[in-house]
């Protein structure tokens, strides 16, 4: 048999310790993919490293909440901070205005309270649903290296002007365009700067298209044209070293097109609004007061592999810690009050009825 250079097993060497010959902000991943950060460290972790270069990310907006803007802001700010090129398009008259709201990287790790309240854990025996706290502690050692790849962003501090005024940003307004040819040409010129070849990657690009089918755009009822634009963008992105993120409100599309668009995505996320002062939800979930919305991960990009990603959880709550830092957390059910006698089926039997047999504990 020939030398086993090509391994067909699912074990793959952890290449992140190998010296990366790539530019800043890029990380090698399994199966020969290179990742770039989404700007939200929690999201990178959930997706297994970040967004792979060459992938198309689509975010389904909720018409009732602006959470997709949070994702876009972090994505764009991350690119600018690391010196990557950015093309931003939006239906507003003046897209540059949005750049003023980009966040700046957080000051230092010391004053940020990523660590949980220490009092909570003293003398407590930790039940299963708190296992997320264990995961956090292990990351401390890796933080230093991560600054070159991803940053934690402080949403209250605007990004410094010199990042925004640099030559690496291009903005397009799609409101008045009668069709998508202008946008397609701009994307093509932008992406031609990052052709993919086998050598090392010097720089990467990011495309952010906000509210793609917004109703004020003239082309917004040309559904087939929009679909073919997405398809051509996907193919252009695939053959370049960049990541494109498109957000769109699915309620404004017809259902069949909405499905088609979802199929086009390599990574598909959706954000949902939370109802305020919802007592039932407050009883069901811990930390309801701090949540601003939900993030669902529907699809994770798998390039160069047939093995699908199966996530432990697909719904996360979006929280703003100290109203500054975007944090994604798994949903935790609130502890069930034993005296009520009933329990939601999914929580373990440890807190519920007293009539368990000998083997249930």
């Amino acid at each position, binding site marked *: 048999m020939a030398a086993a250079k090509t391994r067909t097993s699912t074990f793959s060497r952890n290449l992140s310790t190998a010296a990366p010959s790539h530019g800043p902000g890029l990380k090698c991943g399994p199966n020969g993919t290179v990742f770039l950060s989404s700007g939200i460290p929690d999201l990178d972790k959930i997706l297994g490293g970040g967004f792979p270069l060459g992938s198309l990310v689509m975010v389904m907006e909720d*018409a*009732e*909440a*602006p*959470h997709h803007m949070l994702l876009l802001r972090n994505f764009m700010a991350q690119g600018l901070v690391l010196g990557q090129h950015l093309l931003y398009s939006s*239906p*507003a*008259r003046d897209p540059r205005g949005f750049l003023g709201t980009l966040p700046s990287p957080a000051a230092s790790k010391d004053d940020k309270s990523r660590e949980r309240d220490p009092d909570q854990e003293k003398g407590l025996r930790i039940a299963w649903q708190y296992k997320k706290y264990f995961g956090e502690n292990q990351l401390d050692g890796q933080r230093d290296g991560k600054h070159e790849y991803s940053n934690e962003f402080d949403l209250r501090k605007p990004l410094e002007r010199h990042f925004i005024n640099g030559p690496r940003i291009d903005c397009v307004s799609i*409101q008045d365009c009668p069709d998508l040819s202008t946008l397609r040409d701009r994307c093509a010129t932008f992406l031609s700067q990052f052709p993919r070849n086998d050598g090392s990657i010097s720089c990467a690009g990011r495309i952010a298209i906000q509210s793609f089918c*917004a*109703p*004020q*755009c*003239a082309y*917004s*009822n040309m559904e087939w044209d929009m679909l073919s634009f997405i398809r051509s963008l996907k193919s252009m992105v695939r053959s370049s070293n960049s990541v494109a993120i498109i957000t769109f*409100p699915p*309620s*404004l599309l*017809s259902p069949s097109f909405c499905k088609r668009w979802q199929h086009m995505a390599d990574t598909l996320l959706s954000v*949902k*609004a*939370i*109802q*305020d*002062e*919802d*007592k*039932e*939800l407050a009883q*069901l*979930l811990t930390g309801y007061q701090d949540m*601003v*919305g939900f993030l669902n991960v529907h699809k994770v990009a798998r390039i160069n592999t047939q093995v699908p990603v199966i996530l432990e959880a697909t719904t996360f709550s*979006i929280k703003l810690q100290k109203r500054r830092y975007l944090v994604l957390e798994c949903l935790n059910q609130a502890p069930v009050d034993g005296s*009520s006698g*009933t329990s*939601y*089926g*999914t929580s373990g039997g440890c807190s519920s009825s007293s009539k368990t047999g*000998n083997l249930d504990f």
Partner: protein
Amino acid sequence: MAESIYRALRDGALEGELAPALTIKDSVASPFALQVFSHVISHLFSSILAGKSQSRGLVVVSFSRSPSFYLDLLKNKGTDVASSNKQIQILDCYSDPLGWKDQLAGSRNFTALSNEALVSSNAIVFREVKHMDKLYNSIIELGKGLVGGGKIRFSIAIDSADEMLRHAPVSSVARLLSNLRSHDQISSIFWLLHSDLHEARVTAVLEYLSSIVASLEPSHQLANGQRGDLENFSLIKHNSKKGKFHVRFKKRNGRVRVMSEEVHIEQSGINFTSLPSEGAINQGLVPKVQFSLQLSEKERIDKANVVLPFEHQGNGKPIQIYDGRRSLVDSKHERPVAAVENVQTNENCGSGEIIYYRDSDDEMPDSDEDPDDDLDI
């Protein structure tokens, strides 16, 4: 709760943000949007006159009713319109929206415009409703005429969005509305919509563009939409006088506040009252349980009165350990107290019972023991 709407419109827009936009939506089953719209206009106008709102002027873009309707409405509500030229202007898209009268008048002497002169101090006729850009410019011009340039803001009321959509495609109307919202002199904007007249996508577009959606629904849903049945007739009568008013606020922090009230239509206007004991229902994440988790008051009292199987009551009577073999009749005469029992009655109110059948009779009658004690860990 209608108060929250007024407050949102009064407070207006913050610097650098889009102006709040309200959609008042109704349907044939509950057609009170016009009354709600008039109510909102009169409220907003009186707060403008009183100086309590961010906006200093109101521009009413009137497609489906003549300007005199609004002037009369405000007069009836007690506001003095004649002297408030500086606070309200009406863009009259009702009298001659497509410019036909003009074209006709061009070919002969015009006589038809005399009755418009009466309201001309407050109303300006607009003749090109197919061109949303020109409409936009006229609205802004009218508003600036009211409040001047600079930083002073004004509000806009559009009656109704349906008429705009008749004349122009959805994307132009959407562009108009979003440009109005992002103009820095607009404090707030609201419009009327009859959802039956449009496809679902159009309603979705207008809801997407607004930050507050107020919808009117009938109190009682008619069965199968039939209107002929006798039993439905009383429901229809009911629905013609009152309905439900649901409002969804999109808050800045990304949460949605949902409120509901009942609305009653009377001669003098409309009244909002709070809904009779209805909690907010969130269909999204709450798991569907078949149990009713809440107790009514009577149920709570009964529950408190039931004596539980494992309670020891020691109130004078001897504590007996029941071995599960006595007849039912005997046990009814004494208060069953032991840890193991068959049937328990409650002598106080006789309604609550806990029926507990032991798994097997092999076990020792005294089961104060913790069954976990014999686990060998």
